């Protein structure tokens, strides 16, 4: 067998049942191949020959190269495929919409190069990971119509893929990365909140639905926050390359109770309505397993984010672990996903901090705030002494056979004298714990440099791996 690779230059269909296909780098350099439809063909053969012709037609219209397989010295097509690219643009290219390109080994300094016959437009992604380049809003400087897109870095360059750029409309459901090709990849869903539920007055339309650019920038900030901050729990070992990420922005939904995904709590807290998210997302085909849902809002006065832990599905499989001698389980699936409500004006380490809460579980282990003294339930990273004057134990807990020390000093912050609670040993004792008051970070005053404690890091890593590789 031989193969010929090139662009489909011309397809000629004759009423004698033959299709002539010319493939090559140009019309003058093309080789001619034949696909014959025979009246003696079985229905299955006729149907698949028609599909071969359909693929060739799609390739011709899209400008995609094809690989034609044929016998040596025989122009009869026996198989055809799209020639592979080393990158994969995700979804349509639309001005003002998200735009993502996946690949492997993408350098951190990669840029997107859009090229038409007359224009070359450069776009710096908002986020680059080895498997993904993410753009929050595709600039209008990119010419409309047929262009090629490629990724390019100082010492690397991808294939150029033909795409068609349009001016709209913006998508309602946008897959930013589809996650592992399996039935239930771990998923993160961003959703623009349709309606806000006040504590005392009637619910009203969330202004986020009239601020698409603000929403897009908030998604970008959240992704960068959880994936590019100093804390690497979600990107270590390229864990994020296995995670599905989707955005849902639907400005057409009715303002009603079922579509209200956030409630305003005095004095300024915006809280996710965790019991509403699965039902709301179902019509958008996000009916797969949900793990972490980020509700983005634009409440004018309630601008402090909050989160609810996950409710694991304890009737489904899990990965066993032992904490302080007690058998526990990292459950693989959720009954209600971890949820957070985040204002689009968010900053600091807020998205990662809320992810820490939401990724943990009410029963199987919670990662609470460390900036208050409250204790309750099975907490991974906070315990209490009988009295504030009691010494903090040297060892905090034993998890999965490893003993973790206590934080004697509450990292750089210090325990208030009336507190009984204490925390595990930090990874970076010079800075607040990521689950503590990260706004007090100093030298540099950047909350995004804060990290988890050693125990929470190990426990959350195992929990995420149990879910991601379920």
């Amino acid at each position, binding site marked *: 067998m031989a193969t010929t690779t090139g662009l489909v230059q011309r397809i000629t269909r004759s009423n004698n049942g033959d299709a002539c296909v010319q493939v090559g780098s140009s019309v003058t350099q093309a080789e001619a191949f034949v*696909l014959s439809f025979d009246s003696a063909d*079985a*229905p*299955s*053969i*006729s*149907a*698949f*020959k*028609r*599909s*071969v012709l*359909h*693929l060739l037609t*799609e*390739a011709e*219209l*899209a400008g*995609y190269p094809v690989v034609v397989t044929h016998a040596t010295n025989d122009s009869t*097509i*026996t*198989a*055809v*495929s*799209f020639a*592979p*690219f*080393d*990158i*994969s*643009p*995700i*979804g*349509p290219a639309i001005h003002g919409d998200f735009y993502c390109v*996946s*690949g*492997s080994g993408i350098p951190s300094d990669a840029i997107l190069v859009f090229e038409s016959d007359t224009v070359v437009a450069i776009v710096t992604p908002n986020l680059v990971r080895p*498997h*993904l380049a993410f753009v929050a809003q595709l600039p209008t400087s990119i010419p409309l119509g047929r262009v090629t897109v490629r990724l390019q870095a100082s010492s690397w360059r991808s294939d150029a893929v033909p*795409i068609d750029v349009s001016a709209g409309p913006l*998508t*309602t*459901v946008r*897959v930013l*990365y*589809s*996650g*592992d*090709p*399996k*039935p239930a*990849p771990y998923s993160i869903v961003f959703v623009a909140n349709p309606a806000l539920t006040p504590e005392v007055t009637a619910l009203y339309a969330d202004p986020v639905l009239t601020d698409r650019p603000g929403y897009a920038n908030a998604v970008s900030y959240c992704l960068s926050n959880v994936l590019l901050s100093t804390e690497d729990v979600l990107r270590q070992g390229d864990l994020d*390359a296995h995670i*599905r990420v989707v955005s849902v922005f639907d400005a057409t939904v009715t303002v009603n109770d079922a579509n209200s995904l956030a409630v305003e709590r005095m004095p300024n807290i915006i809280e996710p309505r965790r019991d509403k998210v699965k039902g709301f997302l179902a019509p*958008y*085909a996000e009916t*797969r397993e949900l793990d972490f849902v980020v509700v983005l809002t634009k409440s004018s006065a309630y601008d402090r984010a909050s989160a609810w832990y996950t409710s694991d599905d304890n009737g489904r499989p899990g990965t066993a672990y032992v904490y302080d001698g007690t058998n526990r389980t990292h459950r693989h699936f959720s009954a209600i996903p971890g949820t957070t409500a985040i204002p689009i004006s968010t900053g600091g380490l807020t998205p990662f901090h809320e992810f820490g809460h939401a990724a943990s579980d009410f029963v199987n282990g919670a990662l609470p705030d460390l900036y208050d003294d409250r204790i309750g339930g099975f907490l991974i990273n906070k315990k209490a002494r009988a009295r504030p004057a009691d010494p903090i134990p040297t060892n905090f807990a034993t998890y999965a056979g490893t003993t973790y020390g206590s934080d004697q000093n509450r990292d750089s912050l210090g325990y208030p004298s009336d507190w009984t609670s204490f925390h595990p040993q930090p990874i970076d004792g010079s800075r607040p714990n990521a689950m503590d008051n990260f706004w007090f970070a100093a030298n540099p005053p950047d909350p995004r440099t804060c990290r988890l404690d050693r125990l929470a890091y190990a426990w959350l890593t195992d929990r995420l791996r149990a879910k991601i590789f379920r």
Partner: protein
Amino acid sequence: MATTTGLVQRLTINAGGSACVSIGPSPTNVAALTIASDSSDSVATAVFKASMVDALSSAMVERREVTARHGDTDSTITAVELPPA
């Protein structure tokens, strides 16, 4: 039944009546699935199977995500869906 969701990264169609498709988030992270015709297929079955192949072709050039249904331990596609955009 299981489902596999992602972009169509590769698609090969054999004129003899089979197709192999790679579905995944990127060119190097894919699941390989198949659609195969049978000489005993009725016209309706043959056309239906080919229509699934056509949907995969169109999804690839449109960069659209697809969901393929198949057996839990079987790579043979029984249904193809293009979710709403």
